[in-house]
C-alpha cells in the first residue's frame, strides 16, 4: 500500500470512528441523520477493502486465470461474460426487496441504535459474507443452485430438508408481505385505487410489449410509469368523491381475500401478460426510489427524532413481541443477513461473472448496498415523531381506534403525543387515520414523505409522496406474491410428485390450477389469521418470518463452512463458522421461545394454553369475540408453533449434516470439493 492510500484509509477510519461515536454516544439531544449515513458508509468501505478482499484472496483463493462459467459455457443467452458494473446492477436489483425497508422500521421500536448496530455488524460479518461465498461456490460449479450444491456437497437428505425449509420460508414471506400491503391499504381509498390500477396497467404493458412493439422495454415501461402517475394523481379525486370512495374503502379481511384471489389468478396467467410487465415496473421504480431516497437524505439532512435506545429493549414493546436477544436480530432481517440471497447468488449472477476477482465486488458489494437501503429505512423511521411511530405501529387491541385514546396510551409509555398531532399527520398524508397501520410500509411512507416533501413540494405534496411510497412498496410486494405463488406451486408439485408422478407435469393446466390453489390456501390462511389478529398480525408474524429467513442463511453458511473444510481451507473456516454459530443460536433460541416460552405474549403454546383454559370455563378473552373465535385463536397458535418448531428442527438437522460432512472432509488428506473447471479452463469435474 502506498503512503497516499495509507493516509486515505486512515482518514476514512478516522471519519468513521468520529461519526460512529456521535451516533452511539450523543444523548439527550437529537442527532443528525448524516452522522449515521457517514458512519455506515465508512464502515462499508473499510469492510470491503480490508475484510471482503481478504476473504476473496486468502480464504477463497479466487483465481483470475480460472475460467468462469460465462466463458466456459458462453451461449450468448444464459452464460454471457458481462461487465461488472452492469452485473452489479442486475445483482442488486435481484436481491433488493421489501425486507430491508420494513425490518429496520420495525426494529426502531427499541430505538435507532440497536437496529443500526446489527445492520452494520450483521452485514459485514454475516450477510455479505454469505452472499459472496454462495456466489463463489456457484461460480465454481457452473452456476448451480443452492439446493443442488447442498445435495452434492452434504448429501441428498440435507438437500431435501433444505428444500422443505425454502418452501416454509416462501409461504411465510408471502403471508407477511401480503399483510404489509393489506395494512397499508385498509380504509384508504386513494391507496387502494392506485394499487388496483397497477393490474390493468401491467396488462396493457404486457400486450404492448408482446404485440404492438415487441420487446421495447423502455417504451412499455415509460407507458406504464405515465399511467401509474396518472393513477396516483387521480387517486386523490377518487378518495374525495364519496360515491367512488365508498367502493374502495375496504376492510382488512376484504383486502386479504382480494389479494389471495389476485395471487391465484395472476399465477395461472402467462408470464408475459402480467408478471413480466409488473416486474419491469416494480424493478425500475424500486431502484429509482431507493436512489431518490439517498439523494433526499443528503439534501434534507433530517434530525433523528427517535431516541437512540428506548425502554422497549426489555421486550415489552408493542410493535413486535420479544426481547432484544434474540428477537432484534431476526427482526432486522434482510438488511443485515438474508438467507434468500443465497438462492439469488446461486442463480443468474454466477453464470455472467467475467472473472473470479469480481466476486467480492458483486457479492459482498451488492449486499453492502442492500444494507445501505436498510440504514436509510432506519433513518426514515426515526425522523418521524416517536409518538406517531408507536401510534402507527401498535395494533388496535392495545391503543383502541380513536386518536384521543391512542394518544393517551402512547403518551403513558413516555412518548408524549397529542390527538391533534395524530390527526394532523393523517390529514397531511391524505388519510382518515394513521392509527395501527402496522407492517412498516406506512411508517416508512410517512418518513420518506417527510424527507421528500422537505425539499420537493412542501406540505402540499406530502400526501402525494405518502401514496407514492405506498404504491412503490405494494407494487413490488404484489410482484413477489405472483412470483412466490408460482415458486410455491412448483415446490409443492415437486414434493407431491414423488407420490403422484402425474402431478409433476408443470405444463398441465389442471396441475397448475390445483398447485396454485393449494399454495394460495397455504399463505392465504396465514395472511387471513394475521389480518384478523387484534395485535395487528405483524406482532406475531414478523418474528416468524425473520426466524425462517435467518434459518435459511444458517443453512447457506453451513454449506459454505463445509466446502471450506472440503477445500482444505479450514484454517480460515472461522469466517463462516462465527456467523453460522450466531445465526443458529439466534434462530434456535427465537424458535424455542416462540414455541415454549411461558409468557403468553411470546410463546404460542402458553398462549394456546391460556385460551384453552378460558374456553373450558366458557370465558371469551380479547381479541376473540365468541367461543368459536376462541377455538380459532387456539388453532392458529398451534399452527404457528408448528411452523416455528419446524424451522428449528430444519436448522438443527442441517447443522448436524454439516458436522458429519466436515468430519469426513477432515479425514481425507486432499481436497474433496466438487468443483468444475481448473486453472487451465479444462471443463472436467473431479469428484
Amino acid at each position: 500500500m502506498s503512503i497516499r492510500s495509507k493516509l486515505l484509509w486512515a482518514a476514512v477510519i478516522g471519519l468513521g470512528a468520529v461519526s460512529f461515536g456521535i451516533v452511539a454516544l450523543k444523548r439527550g439531544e437529537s442527532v443528525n441523520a448524516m452522522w449515521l449515513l457517514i458512519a455506515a458508509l465508512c464502515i462499508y468501505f473499510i469492510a470491503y477493502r480490508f475484510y471482503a478482499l481478504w476473504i476473496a484472496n486468502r480464504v477463497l483463493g479466487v483465481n483470475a486465470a480460472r475460467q468462469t462459467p460465462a466463458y466456459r459455457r458462453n451461449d450468448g443467452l444464459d452464460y454471457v461474460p458481462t461487465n461488472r458494473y452492469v452485473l452489479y446492477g442486475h445483482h442488486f436489483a435481484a436481491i433488493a426487496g421489501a425486507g430491508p425497508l420494513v425490518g429496520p422500521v420495525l426494529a426502531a421500536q427499541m430505538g435507532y441504535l440497536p437496529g443500526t448496530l446489527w445492520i452494520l455488524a450483521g452485514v459485514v460479518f454475516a450477510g455479505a459474507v454469505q452472499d459472496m461465498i454462495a456466489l463463489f461456490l456457484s461460480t465454481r460449479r457452473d452456476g448451480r443452485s443452492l439446493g443442488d450444491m447442498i445435495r452434492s456437497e452434504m448429501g441428498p437428505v440435507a438437500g431435501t430438508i433444505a428444500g422443505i425449509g425454502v418452501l416454509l420460508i416462501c409461504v411465510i414471506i408471502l403471508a407477511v408481505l401480503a399483510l404489509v400491503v393489506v395494512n397499508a391499504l385498509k380504509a384508504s381509498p386513494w391507496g387502494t385505487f392506485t394499487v388496483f390500477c397497477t393490474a390493468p396497467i401491467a396488462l396493457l404493458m404486457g400486450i404492448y410489449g408482446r404485440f404492438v412493439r415487441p420487446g421495447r422495454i423502455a417504451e412499455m415501461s415509460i407507458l406504464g410509469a405515465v399511467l401509474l402517475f396518472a393513477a396516483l394523481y387521480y387517486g386523490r379525486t377518487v378518495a374525495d368523491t364519496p360515491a367512488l370512495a365508498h367502493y374502495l374503502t375496504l376492510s382488512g379481511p376484504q383486502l386479504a381475500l382480494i389479494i389471495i384471489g389476485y395471487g391465484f389468478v395472476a399465477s395461472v396467467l402467462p408470464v408475459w401478460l402480467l408478471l413480466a410487465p409488473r416486474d419491469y415496473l416494480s424493478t425500475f421504480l424500486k431502484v429509482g426510489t431507493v436512489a431518490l431516497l439517498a439523494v433526499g437524505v443528503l439534501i434534507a439532512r433530517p434530525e433523528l427524532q427517535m431516541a437512540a435506545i428506548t425502554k422497549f429493549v426489555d421486550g415489552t414493546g408493542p410493535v413486535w413481541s420479544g426481547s432484544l436477544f434474540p428477537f432484534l436480530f431476526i427482526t432486522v432481517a434482510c438488511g443485515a443477513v438474508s438467507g434468500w440471497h443465497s438462492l439469488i447468488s446461486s442463480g443468474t449472477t454466477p453464470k455472467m461473472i467475467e472473472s473470479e476477482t469480481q466476486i467480492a465486488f458483486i457479492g459482498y458489494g451488492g449486499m453492502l448496498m442492500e444494507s445501505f437501503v436498510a440504514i436509510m429505512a432506519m433513518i426514515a423511521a426515526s425522523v418521524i415523531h416517536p409518538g406517531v411511530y408507536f401510534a402507527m405501529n401498535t395494533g388496535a387491541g392495545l391503543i383502541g381506534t380513536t386518536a384521543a385514546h391512542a394518544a393517551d396510551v402512547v403518551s403513558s409509555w413516555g412518548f408524549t403525543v397529542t390527538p391533534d398531532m395524530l390527526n394532523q399527520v393523517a390529514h397531511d398524508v391524505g388519510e382518515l387515520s394513521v392509527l395501527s397501520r402496522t407492517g412498516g410500509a406506512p411508517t416508512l411512507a410517512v418518513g420518506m414523505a417527510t424527507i421528500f416533501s422537505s425539499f420537493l413540494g412542501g406540505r402540499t405534496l406530502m400526501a402525494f409522496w405518502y401514496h407514492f411510497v405506498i404504491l412503490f412498496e405494494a407494487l413490488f410486494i404484489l410482484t413477489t406474491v405472483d412470483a412466490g405463488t408460482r415458486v410455491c406451486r412448483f415446490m409443492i408439485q415437486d414434493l407431491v410428485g414423488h407420490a403422484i408422478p402425474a402431478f409433476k407435469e408443470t405444463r398441465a393446466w389442471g396441475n397448475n390450477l390445483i398447485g396454485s390453489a393449494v399454495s394460495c390456501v397455504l399463505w392465504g390462511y396465514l395472511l387471513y389469521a394475521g389480518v384478523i389478529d387484534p395485535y395487528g398480525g405483524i406482532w406475531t408474524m414478523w418474528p416468524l418470518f425473520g426466524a425462517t429467513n435467518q434459518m435459511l442463511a444458517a443453512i447457506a453458511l453451513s454449506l459454505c463452512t463445509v466446502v471450506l473444510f472440503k477445500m482444505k481451507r479450514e484454517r480460515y473456516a472461522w469466517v463462516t463458522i462465527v456467523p453460522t454459530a450466531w445465526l443458529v443460536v439466534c434462530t434456535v433460541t427465537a424458535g424455542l421461545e416462540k414455541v415454549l416460552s411461558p409468557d403468553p405474549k411470546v410463546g404460542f403454546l402458553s398462549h394456546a394454553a391460556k385460551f384453552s383454559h378460558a374456553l373450558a370455563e366458557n370465558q371469551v378473552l380479547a381479541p376473540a369475540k365468541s367461543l368459536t373465535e376462541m377455538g380459532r385463536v387456539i388453532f392458529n397458535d398451534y399452527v404457528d408453533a408448528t411452523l416455528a418448531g419446524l424451522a428449528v428442527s430444519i436448522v438443527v438437522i442441517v447443522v448436524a449434516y454439516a458436522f458429519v460432512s466436515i468430519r469426513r472432509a477432515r479425514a481425507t488428506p486432499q481436497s474433496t470439493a466438487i468443483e468444475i473447471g481448473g486453472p487451465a479452463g479444462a471443463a472436467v469435474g473431479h469428484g
Partner: protein
Amino acid sequence: MAKLSFLWRRAVQTARLMVGIPDYDTYVAHRSAHHPGEPVMSYGEFFRERQKARYAIEEGRFKGCC
C-alpha cells in the same frame, strides 16, 4: 461525446439486465463468431425467449426476493 454514449450504452444494458434481458448485440456477435451460418434469432424472438427463460420457475430460474 464518445464517452457519454459509452456510459449511456452501459446504463441501458444495466437497466435491461435488471429485468432479465441480456445484451442483444453480444448475442448476435457470439452467434456469428462461434456458430457461423447457423440461424440467429431476431430481437423480437430473442426478447420472447429470454422473457420466458427468466420466469421459468419450473427450472428454478426466477426467485423474486423479500
